[in-house]
């Protein structure tokens, strides 16, 4: 029988037992909805985690350091030597890093301890410089107030815990001024340092002295979490200021003492540089290229891979869990088709007497099963999406009550829609195997006798 005729007859048969077919289709829809809801939860959570981590700057960043000879730490004094191929992390190296493909920006880390004066009280904290590009990468989503008005603005963004130290009503801090006290490095002349080297910007080849300075900053924003907390970037800064401003302060940093005694051929040398990639997936290639340049690198690529493995297993478990309902729906399809054989036994006999081959009968039942599967799949995707929306709504109501930003924990990508429908049809076809085979094997003479 031709496909068109098979389809017409199958649809007619399903219409004849409309209630039963509808209930079976609904069963498939519930199964698919369960599958879609669970998987979309897994995908949504993965997307959420990836987005948050990506926005944090942890995964699209490579920290570049000067390569050191690890054995030099264990050698006797005077015998230590630089690592083979070790290069200085100087301005030339920075420019070379900037020219690497897929690199968005390269900047040095500026982080220094300060004493903040606010409302007549002193508070110790760490100041961190933030590049202007951080504004667009989502790190500051959910910020109270706003980002810096410009790269050279004397403005500050406070981390919420630090803001709470300053005031019991952190949001009232926005627009107020505070004073930052820091230690400025002032270069000594070569004569004072005892070494006849040039005094280049960014380095103090002749040594440096420390001069206390003050700077007034206006609080423009409060952020819930530190961007890139605990890793490279802005570190554990609780008072964030524009990177350009932080650099111009020439504030003494933790590693200045080490740099003061390190030989650098008179060129400015960075303790480390942060290289930001276009996306997290490009980090590995960039990291390899930087290593080939002779620098040490550090990134969280391994952590990203672990996260991917975790979510793959998580999604698999959700798939299995969600499939249970679909498995139950499969039994419904088998039941419906077996009942159809009993009811249509005589009809099958007539069809065979009129020339239907066993395969025609088998195909007819397969088409009926797949039609139920298809419509069940389409309905199920819709139901699953609705469940996701409803749960998201509920979660966001809860988050709002907890004064937390809203989020979308469900994601139904197009491939999941396609997968769910194809799976529903395949499962229905599998469910139709036994009934279809049984119907095809019916003896026409016995079937015609059936009342």
């Amino acid at each position, binding site marked *: 029988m*031709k496909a068109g005729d098979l389809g017409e*007859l199958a649809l*007619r048969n399903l219409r*004849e037992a409309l209630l039963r077919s509808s209930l079976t289709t609904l069963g498939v829809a519930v199964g698919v909805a369960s599958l879609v809801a669970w998987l979309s939860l897994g995908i949504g959570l993965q997307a959420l985690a990836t987005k948050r981590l990506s926005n944090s700057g942890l995964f699209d960043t490579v920290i570049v350091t000067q390569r050191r000879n690890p054995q030099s730490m264990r050698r006797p004094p005077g015998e230590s030597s630089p690592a083979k191929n070790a290069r200085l992390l100087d301005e030339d190296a920075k420019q070379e890093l900037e020219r690497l493909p897929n690199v968005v920006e390269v900047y040095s880390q500026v982080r220094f301890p300060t004493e903040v004066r606010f409302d007549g009280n002193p508070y110790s904290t760490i100041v961190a410089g933030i590049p202007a590009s951080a504004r667009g990468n989502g790190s500051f989503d959910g910020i109270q107030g706003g980002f810096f008005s410009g790269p050279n603005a004397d403005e500050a963004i406070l981390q919420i815990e630090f803001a709470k130290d300053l005031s019991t009503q952190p949001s009232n801090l926005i627009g107020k001024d505070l004073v930052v006290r820091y230690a400025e490095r002032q270069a000594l002349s070569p004569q004072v340092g005892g070494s006849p080297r040039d005094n280049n910007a960014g380095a103090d080849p002749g040594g440096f002295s420390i001069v206390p300075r003050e700077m007034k900053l206006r609080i423009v924003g409060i952020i819930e979490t530190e961007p890139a907390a605990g890793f490279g970037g802005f570190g554990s800064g609780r008072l964030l200021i524009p990177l350009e401003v932080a650099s111009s302060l020439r504030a003494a940093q933790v590693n200045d003492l080490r740099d003061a005694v390190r030989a650098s051929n008179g060129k400015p040398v960075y303790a480390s540089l942060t290289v930001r990639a276009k996306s997290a997936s490009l980090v590995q290639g960039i990291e390899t290229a930087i290593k080939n340049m002779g620098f040490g690198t550090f990134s969280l690529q391994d952590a990203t891979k672990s996260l991917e493995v975790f979510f793959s297993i998580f999604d698999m478990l959700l798939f299995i869990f969600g499939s249970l309902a679909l498995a139950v729906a499969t039994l419904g399809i088998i039941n419906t088709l077996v009942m159809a054989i009993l009811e249509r036994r005589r009809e099958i006999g007539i*069809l065979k007497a*009129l*020339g239907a081959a*066993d*395969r025609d009968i088998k195909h007819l039942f397969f088409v009926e099963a797949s039609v139920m599967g298809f419509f069940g799949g389409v309905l199920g995707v819709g139901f699953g999406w609705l469940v996701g929306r409803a749960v998201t709504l509920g979660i966001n109501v809860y988050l709002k009550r907890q004064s937390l930003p809203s989020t979308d924990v469900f994601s139904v990508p197009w491939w999941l829609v396609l997968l769910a429908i194809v799976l529903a049809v395949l499962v229905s076809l599998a469910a139709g195997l036994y009934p279809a085979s049984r119907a095809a094997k019916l003896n026409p003479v016995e079937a*015609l006798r059936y009342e």
Partner: protein
Amino acid sequence: MTTGDGMAVRADRVSRHYEMGAAVIRAVDDVTLDVGAGEFVALLGSSGSGKSTLLNLMAGLDRPTGGAIFANGRNLSELSSLELARYRSHTVGMVFQSFNLLPRMTLEENVELPLRLAEVDRAERGGRVQEALERVRLEKRLTHRPSELSGGEQQRAALARALVNRPTLLFADEPTGNLDSATGESIMLLLKEIQQKLGMTIVMVTHERPLAERFADRIAALADGKLLTSGVKS
């Protein structure tokens, strides 16, 4: 189409035995019967004589447990399931005592069904259905469902369905069994007309000797699965 010697169907020492536990039911037992092309043969016998079983074997609905059925020049026992289905579709038309029309289909759809199964082009089907229904004078009842027709009309519709694929063999199993005598006679007249106009070979099962004697060219009488007489019209 014939077996090559002018015979439309030949049953050669055909048996159909059923095993019911330890007992063996010999529904058809060592029957040999030749049906000539264009011949109208009546299989006559009482209930349980094996006439319907023999008809089903010749129609390719069942397979013999012994002997052979030759039709279309081929031994039906040797045909695959698919080939047997094609034989039923293209060579055979069947009419049953209880009409066996599909109640949820209209008359037009019922008659069209064998054309669907034979994969006849959609464009050709309308004309074939119309032609078959005109032959049984039901061309004005296209959209009616079987339940809206009388018994006689239903049997005529079943006859149209049996003829729509233009078969060479028509097998009728008690075609008048569910009809009153007048309607039954009209069906028999129709069968006779079809045999004469189309040159079709007809094998009809009946237990009504008068009908068989009046319309069939030859009578084959069966009892207890065995062929008693063949070719006698008393």
